[in-house]
């Protein structure tokens, strides 16, 4: 695992899907903007001031006319990044649970190792303040991912990702809502993309826990995946 000494962050577009994140989006974008010149916030039909605050903080904002879901928002942001000629695309959660330093580390790994995708893993890293129920749910997601895609990952639902433009072009997120995380992994397996997991630190603040997926969401994700498979 080697680092490229000169990360050219101008080639990177950071996609931040956001829904009802007016309280934290400015901080998240502000922290990112200290390193990254290209930040794309996809406002997924928020009724609050998410779009305005993201824009004020220095991000290009794309607005869905109504709420479509995080998967759809990611796909929109990725499409924009590719249109703008991005060499690398990263995804970053809006709620401030990811660390910019981790993303830079992941990009270093991506650029220096001829990989297609680098995924953040909170279980290789140090989860801060992760409740046990959520830990069990996330571990179950890992087992599910292994069973359906065959990929041995330690963390199936991490919003922190970095990929090359080429890989981003091949990925096609059709799961509009939360099942997109599993879908991305399935596509990594199917397209035989070269991937690696990198340990990242997730900060579980009270805010991100309140906003994050609930455990019962896992069942919903399963249903979404099944439906997607049925209607193919």
């Amino acid at each position, binding site marked *: 695992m080697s680092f490229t000494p000169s990360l050219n962050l101008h080639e990177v577009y950071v996609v931040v899907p956001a829904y009802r994140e007016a309280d934290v989006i400015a901080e998240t974008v502000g922290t990112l*903007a200290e390193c990254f*010149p290209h930040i794309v916030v*996809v406002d997924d039909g928020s009724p609050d001031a998410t*779009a305005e605050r993201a*824009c*004020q*903080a*220095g*991000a*290009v*904002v*794309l*607005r*869905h*006319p*109504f709420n*479509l879901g995080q998967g*759809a928002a990611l*796909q*929109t942001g990725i*499409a*924009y990044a590719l*249109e703008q000629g991005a060499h690398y695309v990263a995804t970053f959660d809006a709620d401030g649970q990811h660390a910019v330093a981790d993303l830079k580390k992941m990009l270093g790994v991506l650029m220096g190792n001829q990989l297609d995708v680098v995924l953040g893993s909170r279980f290789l890293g140090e989860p801060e303040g992760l409740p046990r129920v959520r830990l069990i749910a996330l571990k179950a997601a890992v087992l599910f991912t292994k069973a359906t895609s065959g990929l041995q990952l330690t963390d199936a639902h991490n919003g922190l990702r970095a990929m090359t433009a080429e890989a981003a072009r091949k990925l096609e997120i*059709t799961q*509009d809502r939360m099942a997109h995380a599993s879908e991305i992994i399935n596509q990594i397996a199917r397209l035989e993309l070269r991937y690696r997991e990198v340990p990242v630190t997730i900060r579980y603040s009270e805010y991100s826990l309140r906003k994050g997926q609930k455990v019962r969401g896992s069942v919903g994700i399963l249903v979404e995946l099944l*439906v997607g498979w049925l*209607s193919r």
Partner: protein
Amino acid sequence: MIIKLLLISLLALLALFVALQRVTSRGVRFTVLTMLAIGAYFVWRPEHANAVAQTLGVGRGADLLMYLWVVITCSVILLLYLKIVELNRMLTQLARRLALSQPIHPPDRSKP
């Protein structure tokens, strides 16, 4: 006798409505009209429905119709569901095009 008249006039109204539809394909209209005609016939002659049911091994004509109704309803629900999924997909693409066509740029673009 009253129920027969009532049901048959309802079916006839439905048939008229379907026949006047310009949007649906000819095949669909033909199928629906045929089914309505068979329905009207069985309303008029329930003993024939009984005979058909018995040949198929079902007790009464009414039971046979109920079983068919369940099967048809389930198929229609499934078809409608798939249609909704498809419409959702199109809606997502439309919303995405819209979002991509109107990016909002930050006020200060002189930053490095």
